[in-house]
């Protein structure tokens, strides 16, 4: 599984890093980025949770 954050949509709600701190980094200005290339098996559920809770629909699943 691969995920990405669309920087044009992300507004820094930080819901992603709260739900999946091992997958996301949020910078000083609130912009989130994915810090792994491939989502490890045990974090797939956390990744989906982040996707489902981002108010800006900024997190995309690039590859299941």
């Amino acid at each position: 599984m691969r995920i990405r954050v669309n920087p044009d949509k992300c507004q820094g709600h930080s819901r992603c890093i709260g739900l999946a701190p091992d997958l996301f980094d949020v910078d000083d200005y609130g912009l989130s980025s994915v810090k792994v290339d491939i989502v490890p098996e045990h974090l797939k559920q956390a990744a989906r949770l982040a996707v489902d809770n981002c108010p800006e629909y900024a997190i995309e699943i690039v590859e299941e």
Partner: protein
Amino acid sequence: MTTNPVSEWATDFDVLDPAYVKDPFPIWDQLRSSCPIAHTTRRGRTWLPTRYEDVNSIAHDIAHFSSSDVGVIPFQPPDGEEIDESEDPLEYGLPPISADPPLHTWTRRLILPWFSHRRVSSYIPMTRSICEMLLSRFSSSGHADAAVDYAQQIPVRVIAHILGVPEEMSDTFTGWVRDVLEFAENPEKRSDTNGALVQFFLDQLELRKKEPGDDLISSLLQTEIEGEPVGDGIILGMLVLLLIAGVDTTWSSIGSSLWHLATNPEDRKRLVTEPEIMPLAIEELLRAYSPVTMARVVTEDVKYQGCPMQAGDKVLLSFSAANRDPEAFEEPETVDLGRKHNRHLAFGAGIHRCAGSNLARMELQVAVEEWLKVIPEFRLSNPDEVTWAGGQVRGPRILPVKF
């Protein structure tokens, strides 16, 4: 000012109507299924969208909906007083909340690092000790006002610490914030308070210029934008905003959450026995009891979802109503502390997303955790004594509990 009670919510609503302040939920439900964008001419032409989709799309449409006046209750100067705008120390408003780009963009960037996810973690020990200190004042007495003695006391102390202003000013700050937000209908109060707030921060600016410290105010004074200092007028607006935006809102959320736990013993037990759900529970409490409504000003005549909006009309963005929309949330009226799909808008959406949301969340979580550690079992002393404030910010103001 007393107003006539509302009978037609779709065409003549009033967000200060006692029924709306006390229990807005059935009103939003009724509007959503009959006339999802309500209208009124009380206090000027104003629209009230109640669906998630409309609130969300208007919050993102900054071209048609300006933040030039975000107050839900319009400010009317006291009788006989004229406002001379050129003399107004707040000539730039309260950026970034009252600004559109470009002023919005760079003023927002100046404050974001102070409330970043990382920075906020460093405020946790300070927040915890504030909560412990407050609890120790009443934990052995068997009763307390969870709003006045606890919720109200926390955010004001935290923001005082970050701004580097004396914590002993807390009660004064609390009074100022309530005058501006809750007693907005009383023009004298609002006007006197604005004056006092502005003078306080002007003095603080002078103080920091002489003796800079390791705090937000000093840092703003030292910042340069393209080689120029930021300007005292803009800094002043930002400081007034940080005090107003961070206090009433967060204390309302803490208060509503404690009200929920006092009235729902099974949820209270669940949080005590399953502390790992705390982060999800906090988001759910934010969704279900979202405190904030913000206003926008229509920039040009536009037909929005069939509603003939005119330039200058106000639109009230009730993030609280959006968060109760059954189209966006399964069983929105049920508070499910383990809710997994929760794209709530308690902190707004789009470019004005609450700049303090990391801080607010942290404060709410720490406040609930510390309370439950010391007082795991509690209930309302008398439900009839509970009072709620509404308008721009909704939350309990008197909340007596016993334990």
